[in-house]
C-alpha cells in the first residue's frame, strides 16, 4: 500500500540551518548536510531544504550546500527558495536536487511551472503555496501570500493549486500561515480543501507539534505527506518514532526504515 510520507525540512540561511535549532550559533556551515543525512537515517521519507538567503551572492553558497547535502542522501531531496527561472532550477538540479520548489516566482510567472516541468519532468516541480484563511469566509477563499508570507495576493489557495496542477506541477506544498510555528496542529480543513481539489499529491506544512497532529492531517486533512522542521530538530521525536506512533494509529507508513 502507498504510504504517507514524513518530510523533514531544513531552513537554511547562508549555508547554516537557522530555524528550529536551539543554539543557532553553534551550527557550523556543514550542518545542513549532516542534519539531512541524520534525518534520512532516522527514517525521514524525504528531505526539503528551503533557502531563505535573498542575496545574489547567497546563490553560490546555496548550490554548494545543495551539492554537499545531496552527496550522501539516498531519499528524495527537494530544494526551494529564490528559484526565479528555469536556469536557476537547472543549477539546483545539477547540484543534486531531485525536485525544486517554487512559490513567488510561480505566481509572478505561472509559465515557469510548465517550463521547468518540460525540461525536468512534472515530478520535479513542487509548487509551494503559503495561505491564510480569510475571516468569516469559506475555506476555499483562503488567500495566497508571497515573499515569505509578507505580501498578500489576489489569489485563492484552492483555485491557485488547481491552476498549478493544470500547468504541470507535480506536487503542492501547502503551508498554513495561521498554523505555522504554533505547534498546535495542521490546518486540516484547508489541507483537505486543497487536496480534494487536485489529483497531485499535497504536502501539508505548518503547525506540527505531536504525532496526533500528523494522524489528523493524514485522515481528516487528506494530506499525502506532511512536513515538519522543529519537531525533529528539537529532538522531540525522530521520524522513526513518529512513524511508529502513526502505524499504531492505523496510518500506513514506511517501516522499518
Amino acid at each position, binding site marked *: 500500500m*502507498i*504510504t504517507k510520507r514524513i518530510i523533514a525540512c531544513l531552513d537554511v540561511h547562508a549555508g547554516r540551518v537557522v530555524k528550529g535549532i536551539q543554539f543557532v550559533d553553534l551550527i557550523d556551515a556543514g550542518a545542513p548536510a549532516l542534519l539531512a543525512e541524520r534525518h*534520512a537515517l532516522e527514517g525521514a521519507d524525504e528531505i526539503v531544504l528551503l533557502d531563505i538567503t535573498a542575496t545574489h551572492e547567497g546563490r553560490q553558497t546555496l548550490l554548494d550546500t545543495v551539492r554537499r547535502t545531496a*552527496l550522501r542522501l539516498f531519499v528524495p*531531496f527537494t530544494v526551494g527558495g529564490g528559484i526565479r527561472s528555469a536556469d536557476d532550477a537547472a543549477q539546483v538540479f*545539477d547540484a543534486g536536487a531531485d525536485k525544486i520548489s517554487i512559490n513567488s516566482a510561480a505566481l509572478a510567472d505561472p509559465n515557469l511551472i510548465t517550463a521547468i516541468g518540460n525540461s*525536468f519532468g512534472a515530478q520535479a516541480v513542487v509548487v509551494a503555496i503559503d495561505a491564510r484563511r480569510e475571516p468569516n469566509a469559506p475555506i476555499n477563499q483562503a488567500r495566497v501570500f508571497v515573499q515569505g508570507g509578507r505580501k498578500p495576493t489576489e489569489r485563492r489557495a484552492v483555485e491557485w493549486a488547481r491552476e498549478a496542477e493544470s500547468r504541470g506541477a507535480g506536487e503542492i506544498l501547502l503551508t498554513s500561515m495561521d498554523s505555522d510555528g504554533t505547534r498546535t496542529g495542521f490546518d486540516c480543513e484547508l489541507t483537505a480543501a486543497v487536496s480534494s481539489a487536485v489529483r*497531485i499529491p499535497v504536502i501539508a506544512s505548518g503547525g506540527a507539534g505531536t504525532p496526533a497532529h500528523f494522524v489528523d492531517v493524514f485522515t481528516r486533512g487528506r494530506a*499525502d505527506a506532511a512536513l515538519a522542521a522543529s519537531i525533529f530538530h528539537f529532538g522531540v521525536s525522530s521520524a522513526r518514532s513518529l512513524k511508529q506512533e502513526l502505524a499504531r494509529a492505523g496510518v500506513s507508513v514506511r517501516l522499518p526504515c
Partner: protein
Amino acid sequence: MRVTVIDYKAGNLTSVLKTLTHLGAECEVTDDPVRVQKAERLVLPGVGHFAATKLLDDRGLTRAVREKIADGTPFLGICVGMQWLYAGSTEAPDQPGLAYFAEQCARFPNVSEKVPHVGWNSIRISPNSKLFAGVADNSFVYFTHSYKAPVTADTAATTDYIEPFAASVERNNVFGVQFHPEKSSDVGLKILSNFLAFNTEAI
C-alpha cells in the same frame, strides 16, 4: 566496475550518477552509439515523457542498445527507461519502444486515487529474481509515475496501486525498475549493487 549511462535529455542524471559512484562504479555519460557499443554495463535512466525516447532512435542509440543486449551486456532501465523496454506506451502511441518485452505500458485507470503514483510503496518480489537477491519481500521503494507496465511472466516485483503493476522486470541480462532505486534508501542501494555485481555468465 565501469557503467555507461545513456543521456537522452530526459531529466536529471545527477542523482543516478551520484549513487552509482557512491557504490564504487566508474560512470561514463554519453549519447554516442559508438561509446554504447564499447560499454561493459548500461544504465538508461529517464523521467518525464515517453516521447523523449525518440532521441534514442534519432541518435542510433536504440540499435546500439539492441546489439549490446543481444551480446549479453547487463542493462538496467529506470522509470521511463524501464517502460522503453516494452513495445510502447499509450503516453506516446506513435513512439515505439525497444520491444524486448512484447507488452504495452499504459496509464493508471482513472479512479478516485491520485495519479501520479508518488511516494514509498511496497514490492512483492519474485523468488527467482537476481536484481532483488537479499532484498526482503515487502520492502519499500520510491515511485513517481503515471504510466506502468503490466504484470507478466517476466515481472520481477509487483506493486499494488489501484491495481497490481510491474515494479520491476527481468529477463536474462535485461532489468527494469519502475521505481527510483537511487532514491530508495538502503533497499535501493542493495538493488543497484546487485545490478553492478550481475555477471552474464552466471545465467
